[in-house]
């Protein structure tokens, strides 16, 4: 599903955030990305969604080379991705319903279809009673569930999550993980950056660990 060939990313000269990374993530796989702060986890996720360009190397997504994807095609790539951030990145002036509906609106789906789908996903994450709230009226855990709902509403091929549980208490973390597992079971490939060793122990999956921009380990349970 995702293939990286000899990826190097240097933000500044002679200082690689990522060095010569080669990695293959199969369709339907669930991969943790771990490593100390500054190891390059976020950078790797940004390269996969074209928020940054690699300095060297090639990236294939679903068999398609996206290394030099023209900027105007990036939106179409992202319609197949679900992206979840540590800080949620919700539209704070819109309601929960509108936030989750937004990726579908963007794709020009019909209103009835949108309503049905959004309601269904919000029910899955247990927030159907919060439809008309604004994000800032919700707890952090609820906001992250909204963000996950927004990522999953499009049935993405790939879900990229950058420390999605970083700010959340253990109960909410469990809820989020259950949502990811559900999506994974339905066929979505997941790449999730996390520091949380306990979490990895609790939900064992393939673990790719980075250190100073290089792959230091790749293990399956």
């Amino acid at each position: 599903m995702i293939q990286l060939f000899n990826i190097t990313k240097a933000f500044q000269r002679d200082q690689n955030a990522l060095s010569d990374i080669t990695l293959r993530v199969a369709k339907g796989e669930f991969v943790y990305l771990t490593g100390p702060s500054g190891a390059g986890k976020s950078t790797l996720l940004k390269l996969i969604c074209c928020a940054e360009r690699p300095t060297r190397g090639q990236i294939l997504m679903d068999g398609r080379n996206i290394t030099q994807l023209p900027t105007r095609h990036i939106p179409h790539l992202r319609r197949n991705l679900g992206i979840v951030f540590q800080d949620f990145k919700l539209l704070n002036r819109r309601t929960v319903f509108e936030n989750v509906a937004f990726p579908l609106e963007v794709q020009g789906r019909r209103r009835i279809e949108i309503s049905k789908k959004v309601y269904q996903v919000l029910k899955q994450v247990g927030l159907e009673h919060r439809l008309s709230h604004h994000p800032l009226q919700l707890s952090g855990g609820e906001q992250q569930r909204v963000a996950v709902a927004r990522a999953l509403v499009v049935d993405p091929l790939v879900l990229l999550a950058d420390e999605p549980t970083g700010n959340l208490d253990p109960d909410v973390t469990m809820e989020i993980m259950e949502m990811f597992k559900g999506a994974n079971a339905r066929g979505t490939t997941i790449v999730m950056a996390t520091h949380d060793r306990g979490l990895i122990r609790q939900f064992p999956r393939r673990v790719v660990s980075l250190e100073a921009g290089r792959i230091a380990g790749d293990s399956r349970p």
Partner: protein
Amino acid sequence: MIGQGIYFLLRALRNMRHSPVLSAASIFTVGVALALLAFFAIAVLNVQRLTASWAAELAVVAYLEQPPEGPVLNRWLGEIRGYPEVASVTYVSRQEAYQRFRQRLGSDADLLDGLGADVLPASLEIRLKPEARQQTAAVVERLGRNKALGELHYGREWLDRFEAFLLLLRTVGIALGGFLVLAALVIVTNTIKLTLYARQDELEAMTMVGATALFIKLPYLIEGALQGVVGGLVALLTSFVAFRMILRESLGNILLLTGIDTIHFLPFTWQILLVAAGGLVGLLGSLLALRKFVRFCQD
């Protein structure tokens, strides 16, 4: 298609509702710049109208000390009519001159009471063909050979001077107007940038879920254009009120001395142009502001 249009319009209106002060600032800026431009346009248009009517009226006038006998007069008229540059010749008798003057004075006509109808001299009014206006001096010289024709007056120099003035007015108007519109554009751009700074996270979030640049920008472009159009309408209204209250009188007082009857407001097409210019400034302003705010990739 219409549904899409309404969707983007609603998003634009919603943005404006969330930042009313900045919206008002944009509208105000465009309004002031275009109102000043409109004042200039009103002045230029009226002076232009005046010169045009003068040019049409431009005549060489020969004052006759002693009105000649009928046959002599007819011979002169015939002779002058024969000049290739001349469009028409009319004889204005003393009585006619007196009547005209009375009419021009209007309500002040009683100033003439007690003066005889023969205070003004008779004259020949010689109108030149429009294409022969450059030859006015030559015609005057030819007329001057007939010593019986008294003083010869013509307005050519006046008209030239006025046309030069008009050119100056127009140049200053265009330069100043261009400067004002440019200044308005810069201010509007920066005002919209302020609203965008506050919404940077939102714009970024939109880029991450697959929205195209146009989808993200369109509401802002509509917002800018709407603000510009409203600014244009404000300018139109302001200049109309100013026209009714001040401009018509002050400009009228200056120009009335020169014989023009009424001062006109901008014609309809110019009004439309003014509002459209506002819309364009707003649209361009938001386009410029958006340039570096909607980024999909840190290339």
